[in-house]
């Protein structure tokens, strides 16, 4: 008997199962043993240790996450820095360009949407790694650009003219935020390595079967075997 199709939305190879038929509505093919002395084969779905959400659902979640991130990482900063403050008389100058916000925030949104959409596939590690590295680079570029200058404001007093300039440097905030991001890059690298070295290894723990589904499965197994269900 050949193996069953991969779980929905998974690019990892699924565990091979055997046995014809199975409970109605269950995935895989299994059924009562054929003939005397044949080994008892359970439905393949009973042997799984994970409960993967469907790929369309994951993609929908990824798109929704991407849209939210585009709003918060791209549109909102541009609105604040270039529309709100740009239209005011504060005369704020800084090195954070629209291109930086667009490409940097866009890269974060796309990669973050990617690892959410493909979290059940082998592409998860790549997207996760790309997202963390993009975040690290983005924070570093923001740190080099996060010097805000206000003015010069011109005023006169007692016949003299004067100009006032104010400078606020918040680069160290981004340098501080790079510490957890660097650790997250290491974590993403380990996940990427795990996905490449042991495909599907993380799925039972990333997507564990819920207690309710586990209980139902035990009841199905008991009915299949003709034994009382566990208490």
């Amino acid at each position, binding site marked *: 008997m050949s193996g069953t199709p991969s779980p929905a939305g998974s690019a990892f190879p699924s565990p091979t199962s055997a046995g014809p038929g199975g409970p109605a509505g269950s995935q895989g093919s299994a059924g009562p043993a054929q003939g005397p002395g044949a080994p008892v084969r359970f439905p393949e779905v*009973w*042997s799984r*240790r994970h409960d993967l959400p469907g790929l369309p659902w994951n993609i929908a979640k990824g798109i929704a996450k991407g849209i939210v991130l585009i709003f918060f990482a791209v549109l909102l900063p541009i609105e604040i820095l270039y529309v709100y403050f740009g239209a005011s008389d504060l005369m704020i100058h800084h090195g954070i360009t629209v291109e930086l916000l667009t490409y940097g925030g866009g890269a974060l949104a796309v990669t973050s949407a990617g690892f959410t959409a493909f979290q059940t596939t082998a592409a998860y590690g790549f997207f996760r790694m790309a997202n963390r590295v993009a975040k690290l680079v983005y924070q570093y570029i923001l740190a080099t650009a996060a010097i805000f200058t206000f003015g*010069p404001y011109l005023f006169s007093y*007692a*016949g*003299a*003219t*004067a*100009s*006032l*300039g*104010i*400078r*606020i*440097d*918040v680069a*160290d*905030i981004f340098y*501080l*935020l790079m*510490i*957890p*991001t660097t*650790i*997250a890059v*290491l*974590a*993403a690298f*380990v*996940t990427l*390595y*795990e996905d490449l*070295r*042991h495909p599907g*290894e*993380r799925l*039972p*723990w990333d997507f*564990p*079967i819920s207690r309710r589904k*586990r209980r139902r*499965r*035990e009841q199905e*197994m008991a009915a299949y075997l003709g034994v009382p269900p566990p208490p």
Partner: protein
Amino acid sequence: MIEYRRRRPPLYRLARYLRWCAVLALFIVLVFLASTIFSAVKLGTGLNPTTGPNGGYAFHYSPALGYTVSFGVNLTNDGYYPLVLDLSAVAYTPLGTVIPYTSTGAVTFSPGNTTTEFGLTVRIPQSTLMANAGQMLVRNTPIAGNVWFNGTYAWIYQFGFSVSANGTWGAPFENLTIVPGTPTAAAGQTTVPVSIRFTNNAFFADVGNLTLQVVNGGTDCGGPSTLAVDVPSQQSFTGLLNLTGPSTCMVPGATVTATYTVGPLTVPLPSTRIG
């Protein structure tokens, strides 16, 4: 029975631990940033600058150091993080630098409700006074100055203010004119009436002594004559002073020198020739 609980794979555990470390580090950073903001608000409302002795400023003169102006305030840091401030200034005119670059250096205000004095002493060297101040007393002079105020709070927030000012120094004896009149001789003594005119364009009143002296060939012709002046700002002054000395000394070609004395400071003014 299916075994649902297994020990997690090593790589999975490692990635999980690292993710937890990243979350913990992010949490610590965010708590730190939030505490700095809270502390900054607390500091802003409780800074309470109080002036030190002499109302916060003091003047001092010594021939060796020149003229010094000191001012300062006491600041109390009741936040949780140190505050470092640095104030510096410079001023110059077309005649030269009036106030050389002067800085307080980095003054640290430690947290814990401690009070530290923050002040700057601006020194005008004696040489500067002698070279330029005489001109600045009698000619309105363009003057430019820069003041920089830099600070660091909680090690990570750096801020700075810079003020550049351009103005005209209003001379306290603008267009000082000393005109010797016709000398009159009697009993070996010669008296020269000298008329004095100027306008006080300074922002302060001229309150001091104007001293005139006739000098001939490097020799003083008798004692100096002093005129006390008290001219409010933007007011003109016209006065007359009689200088008396030996007839052999007070001859055409002699020079009438003028000096202005205010407090401990004596500054030479432009001289005028008799005849």
